């Protein structure tokens, strides 16, 4: 229920030619633009700028030192590991769920869609908590795990699980409406031409939704790398072991090591900016394809 609300690929950038009757006087226009920019500056631009200024406040050397610190490096590594596992898992799930939901009719479909949305509605803290309840020392399978010398909570598997949970719906929510809109004509055509199920999936369905897929992956990855609350509950904050980048930022911050905290935070902020750029590129690409289509149709 979160980001998918945004991602219907409409091209927001088309200029709408408006007649005088349906536009406002110029002073009202600029007043509204100014208020909007002021609001966005206070809440978005200034905080974003603050991350980089704070990171470089004590000079570039301190900045680099904070980043090459072994604990920082290990947190970067863990963040990438968690994302590298969570993204493919949720990608496969998203494709499977979208295939079932978009191409077939069955009872309980809308309930299924709502259930897929559940992780969006759950507080990240609770997402962490439920895995502690199952895999923790007192948990359902905790003692079995100890017998086999396996650790989930306060270890990497727990972090991966929590990450998978919070990013669970992203790809599915991106693909379902897209694949529903495309119908199943092309898949049926492939079938009549003798293609097998996998051939249809690889050669027809997936190429058709590649931009939506990429969009979903970008969102999943951003959230996976940035997740804080859920991971914080299951991680145990063991330095150099179970700290992801956001957790490392917290530890440094709580130790009043602001420059180092903001240095690591600036990496995450860069990641966010890269995400926004990629996201915009995908949106523009989709909008361009759509307007190409329109040109040929008209």
């Amino acid at each position, binding site marked *: 229920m*979160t*980001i998918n*609300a*945004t991602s219907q690929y*409409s091209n*927001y*950038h*088309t200029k*709408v030619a*408006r007649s005088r009757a349906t536009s406002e006087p110029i002073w009202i226009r600029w007043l509204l633009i100014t208020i*909007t*920019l002021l*609001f966005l500056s*206070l*809440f*978005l631009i200034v*905080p974003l700028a*603050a991350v980089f200024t*704070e990171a470089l406040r004590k000079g570039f050397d301190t900045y680099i030192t904070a980043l090459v610190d072994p604990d920082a490096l290990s947190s970067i590594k863990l963040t990438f590991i968690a994302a590298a596992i969570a993204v493919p898992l949720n990608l496969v799930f998203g494709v499977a*769920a979208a*295939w*079932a939901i978009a*191409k077939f009719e*069955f*009872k*309980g479909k809308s*309930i*299924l869609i709502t259930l897929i949305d559940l992780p*969006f*509605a*759950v*507080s*990240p*803290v609770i997402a962490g*908590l439920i895995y502690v*309840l*199952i895999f*923790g020392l007192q*948990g359902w399978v905790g003692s079995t795990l100890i017998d086999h010398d396996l650790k989930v909570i306060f270890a990497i598997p727990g972090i991966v699980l929590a990450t*998978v*949970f919070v990013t*669970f719906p992203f790809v599915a929510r991106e693909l379902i409406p897209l694949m529903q809109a495309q119908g199943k004509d092309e*898949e049926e055509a492939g079938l009549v031409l003798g293609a097998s*199920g996998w051939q*249809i*999936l690889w050669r027809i369905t997936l190429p058709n939704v590649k931009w939506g897929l990429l969009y979903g992956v970008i969102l999943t990855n951003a959230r996976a790398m*940035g*997740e*804080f*609350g859920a991971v*914080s*509950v299951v991680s145990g904050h063991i330095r150099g072991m179970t700290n992801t980048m*956001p957790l490392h*930022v*917290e530890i440094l911050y709580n130790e009043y090591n602001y420059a180092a905290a*903001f240095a690591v935070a600036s990496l995450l*902020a860069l990641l*966010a900016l890269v995400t*926004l750029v990629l*996201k915009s590129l995908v949106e523009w690409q989709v909008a361009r394809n759509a307007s190409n289509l329109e040109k040929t149709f008209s």
Partner: protein
Amino acid sequence: MINNMAKQKNVLPGFNLSLGYTIFYLSLIVLIPLSAAFIKTTELSLHEFWAVVSAPRVVASYKLTFGASLIAALINGAFGLLTAWVLVRYTFPGKKIIDALVDLPFALPTAVAGIALTAVYASNGWIGSWLEPHGIKVAFTPLGVIVALTFIGLPFVVRTVQPVLQDLEAETEEAAASLGANRWQTFTKIIFPAIWPALLTGFALAFARAIGEYGSVIFIAGNVPFVSEITPLIIITKLEQYEYASATAVAVVMLIISFLLLFAINGLQWWFNRRATTSH
């Protein structure tokens, strides 16, 4: 739900495999773990459960969480509508960048948002130092909680209202103008009724997201019990003291409220879509 898998008349392959995997994975990652929370609370008697979830400190946290979330969602409702309007209707330099930047709260890790907002709104920060002389303290007060929740909820209203505003036909506005309506009348009588379901949906999404938010709030809130302590933090605190059952009890209260909100939002969107399709 497996019982509901009616025999497919559709000839496309892979239904059983894809739906089977979907339900299996959904159960494994989401449904079974979530049910653990509900089962865990049965360790408490009803009386104990009530004592935990109605303790004064917990109740104070509900008030803060829901109150701040509501105010933040209202702020986002107003400014989100304005932002969507400006982005759709007007042109100005840097518009594309601003448009892309609206999604920053989705992309920026909450912990980073938390420390950045704290740095900016602390009494020695860029904006905080400017507000301090006027007697306004943001960081480490409930006001800080509202600021953080406004930040993380900002894209929701913009992104739900924007496409609807984009699709509005200029002709209806021209018709209104030709019938003698002024701009304000056209907005209140023609435009607003068309976008308010989207506005409401965006508001509900921002509200739901704010209730569960943790990362961006804890840095700026100061976390003073009874004053600036949010409910998710209560859960963490109880967990750190190994009070699993009572942490879960509070979590269950939040879960139920979140589920109700989710159903309300899905209902809203269903109603909204139906309205959109029948009106064409």
